[in-house]
């Protein structure tokens, strides 16, 4: 898990900050951003292996961010966070290039497992 770099993008600050702290406690390098546009600013200085992206955000929506990321930074794997019962949106995201999607509230171990799988995919591709 060392050297894994993850960018968390979610407007729910309390949620995203807590997740970041929990991932950090497990040795994962984590950065947080609270809205879509901010993510691209952050990407100029911080290039993560995986982006964990909430679909429901004010301003730029998760799916727009995803499309743009996949276009500008095709190497970054994106894991989507969806609300309950938002399976169709999750599937749409996967068609647009997301690695997988998880439903909130989530299990930290499941998230870490997905991040690991995404990083594996990324390294096997390179």
């Amino acid at each position, binding site marked *: 898990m060392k050297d894994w770099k993850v960018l968390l993008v979610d407007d729910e600050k309390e*949620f995203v900050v807590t997740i970041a*702290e*929990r991932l950090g406690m497990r040795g994962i390098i984590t950065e947080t951003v609270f809205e879509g546009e901010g993510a691209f600013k952050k990407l100029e200085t911080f290039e993560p292996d995986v982006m964990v992206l909430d679909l429901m955000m004010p301003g730029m929506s998760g799916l727009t961010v995803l499309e743009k990321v996949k276009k500008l930074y095709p190497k970054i794997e994106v894991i989507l966070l969806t609300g*309950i*019962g938002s399976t169709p949106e999750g599937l749409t995201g996967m068609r647009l290039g997301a690695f997988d999607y998880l439903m909130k*509230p989530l299990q930290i171990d499941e998230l870490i497992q997905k991040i690991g799988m995404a990083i594996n995919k990324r390294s096997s591709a390179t």
Partner: protein
Amino acid sequence: MRSIKGLIEDLLSIPEERSTPERYRIVGRNIAILMLTTTLVPLALMTAINYYEYKAALRNEIQAPMKTLVNKAKHSFELFLAGRLSTVNFIASAYTFEELADEKNLNRIFRVLKKEFEGFVDIGLIDSKGTQISYAGPYELQGKDYADQAWFEQVRVNGVYISDVFKGYRKFPHLAIAVQHISTDGREWIVRATINTAKLDDLIASMGLDSESDAFVINRQGVFQTKSKFYGDVLDKCPVTIPTRSFEPTVIERVDPLGRDIFLGYVYFNQNDFIFAFIKHKSDVLKVWYTLRADLLIVFVIGLTVIILGVLKLTSIMMKRMKESDDRRTMALREVEHSHKLSSIGRLAAGVAHEVNNPLAVINEKAGLMQDVIQYNPDFPDRERFLNLVKAIIQSVERCRTITHRLLGFARRMDVEVQLLDVNEVLRETLGFLEKEALYRNVKLDLDLLKNLPQIKSDRGQLQQVFLNILNNAMFAIGDGGTIAISSFERDSEMIGVTIKDTGHGMSEETLKHVFEPFFTTKKSGQGTGLGLSITYGIVKRLGGDIEVQSKPGIGTFFTVYLPKQTPAQSGV
């Protein structure tokens, strides 16, 4: 005119504002009245027209031959009298006074007369002073003086005289014919003959009348000149009065002195003061008419009965159809309304679920972080206790997650969606809603689901609603401590079935009959809408399935839902 129009409009209008049963009663009554009017009026008119036409035709048929007969009889009588008159006239003219005054001559003439013409009784020569000069016949009348008798005066004035029938001293009915002759030298004499009127009776007898008919001749004073079969003998007064003079044969209807309805045909003689009368009894001649009238009445009554029964039956069928169609429409409307309502509730539930979900995720992560902090710090005070507390929080979050899941599931049910699904799973999911209540009320949920039950193509949300409605009713019926047994099975290659059996209070036969009707409920006001089972029924039917219910008061209720493995394409779900 306007009132009739108003009446028709009233009959055609449907009173929307009235209560439903009364409305159907009024509409049914109006339709029946309209149909009866439009069918019975022509029938009654036709019967009445037929009645009067037949009556007129029949009367004409009776009267025309009567008139002919009366006319013929009159001619026979007139011919008879004219023949006798001209014979007497011939004798008066052909012989001189002296020839006729000679009794030998007169007897010879009389013998020829009797031989050639029937009915002559005697003949005599009377001079201008009224004295009978000579006489041939069975009586001793020579020298008789007729100067004072009225007929003598009349024959001298008119030249001719035919008497009414009389008996005189001959003691049998006869009539006298007298003819005056004035010779070229101014000498005047009268030949007078009497004729036996039995000949007149013969003429009537020769008409061949039936036993119920009568014919006779009367004079203008109403005295019989011939005998009548029913009303009297010759020279009796005729009890039937003959109306005003008519030389044309006439037939009238009246009641005779014996109280019988009769047709009276009569005609006045042109040359004499006689009237010929012909009588037929109505009851006799109208037998055909009475039969016809009875037939007409029977046809009318049968027609009337058939029409009334037909109209009533038709109206009742129409009303039933109308009520059924109205009920279907009302039910469809209620169903739409209900599903809109549910749809709104569904959207609300979905919104709530989403909104609750985010703080729930935060709580989950905070608790997770707390867990991490404790776990990563072996020296954390009261470590185990805090770990347990955090675990409890995370478990509660999980429970909340399940609840929001269900809310969303409920919301999704509003969208019609056919998919391949496992009915056992749908049943378990539905029972999830009731588990807590069942637990609190100590209700036993007994599941006997068929393993490897084939998956079916149907609508998950609609099915959940079906099962939930039945289960809710079962929960209501059993009270605390009862049992609800649920089982699934495969009926045949096309259908599967689900049974839901409760140990509740059951339903009476009467309740069972109405159980699927909308707005039918046995629950107290406010406890139920009466829509649940009607919607259930509608959904099952739409899904191409069927629903059956058996129930016994005090024992429980047993619902069986059959569902097709393939939802029919035309079901619209």
